[in-house]
């Protein structure tokens, strides 16, 4: 039995997003596209205004002489050093660079990006970054310039095939830790 726009369109509609409760799909026929390598990767930022934001939100890390508390202090000192050396970015700049992408005059169907601010319990610190993709082999495309120009600790931006990018996101999101 086939379900598509012409044959059984109601079933086709129900199956897409309907979980798996409308039947067992034994085959998916997908349209292919001629496509070569794309540009993209993940960049990681050190956030320099995190302490200010925490203070304005009334969050204070009191120094207690236990492992966790000392770790928090060490990480924040390290972040301070990174900021002093000029390798850190302001969270506001990261968010603005991202939201500016939504402006109509910037519309570019090749560009894709998301940003993240993640809490890493192991080191009791926030990690911020962006994952970008440009579906052409064009290095540092102008649409994403504001995001790429933010100071970063490291980046994996490169021109590769889609399988390489899927493997990268896989590595950053291990099974059971997603």
């Amino acid at each position, binding site marked *: *039995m086939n379900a598509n726009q012409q044959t059984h369109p109601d079933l086709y509609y129900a*199956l*897409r*997003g*309907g*979980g*798996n*409760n409308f*039947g*067992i*799909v*034994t*085959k*998916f*026929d*997908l*349209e*292919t*596209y*001629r*496509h*070569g390598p794309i540009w993209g990767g993940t960049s990681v930022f050190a956030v320099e205004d995190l302490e200010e934001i925490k203070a304005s939100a009334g969050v204070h890390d009191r120094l207690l002489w236990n492992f966790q508390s000392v770790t928090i202090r060490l990480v924040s000192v390290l972040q301070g050093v990174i900021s002093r050396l000029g390798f850190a970015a302001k969270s506001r700049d990261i968010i603005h660079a991202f939201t500016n992408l939504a402006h109509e005059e910037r519309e570019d169907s090749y560009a894709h990006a998301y940003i993240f601010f993640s809490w890493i319990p192991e080191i009791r610190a926030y990690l911020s970054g962006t994952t970008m993709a440009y579906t052409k082999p064009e290095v540092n495309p102008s649409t994403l310039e504001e995001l790429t120009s933010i100071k970063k600790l490291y980046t994996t931006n490169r021109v590769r*095939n*889609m*399988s390489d*990018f*899927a*493997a990268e*996101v*896989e590595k950053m*999101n291990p*099974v*059971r830790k997603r």
Partner: protein
Amino acid sequence: MIPGSSSIENGVLVDLSRMNSLELAEDESTVSIGPGARWGDVYLALEERGLLVVGGRVSSVGVGGLTLGGTLIDLRDNKKAELYKVVYLFSLVFMEWLVTMYEALR
């Protein structure tokens, strides 16, 4: 059958992970993919011919779950491997039954 793993009450979960075939049409305009295939393998196979499909961003995610909009558990749990074999057999029987029913009703 894996109790409590279906999204509906008394529902069943069917493991389709071994139905992971990939068949490219002669004119290469479409590709038929089994629901158990994973996106990473799909991309690798298509890239050899300079092709791509719209799919998932994470390589271990399965084609069936993402396309239909949902997944519940990790099917790579070795402790439950035997159980999944049973489920797989069951799925084949169930599909045969579905086909028979469909033919009969037509």
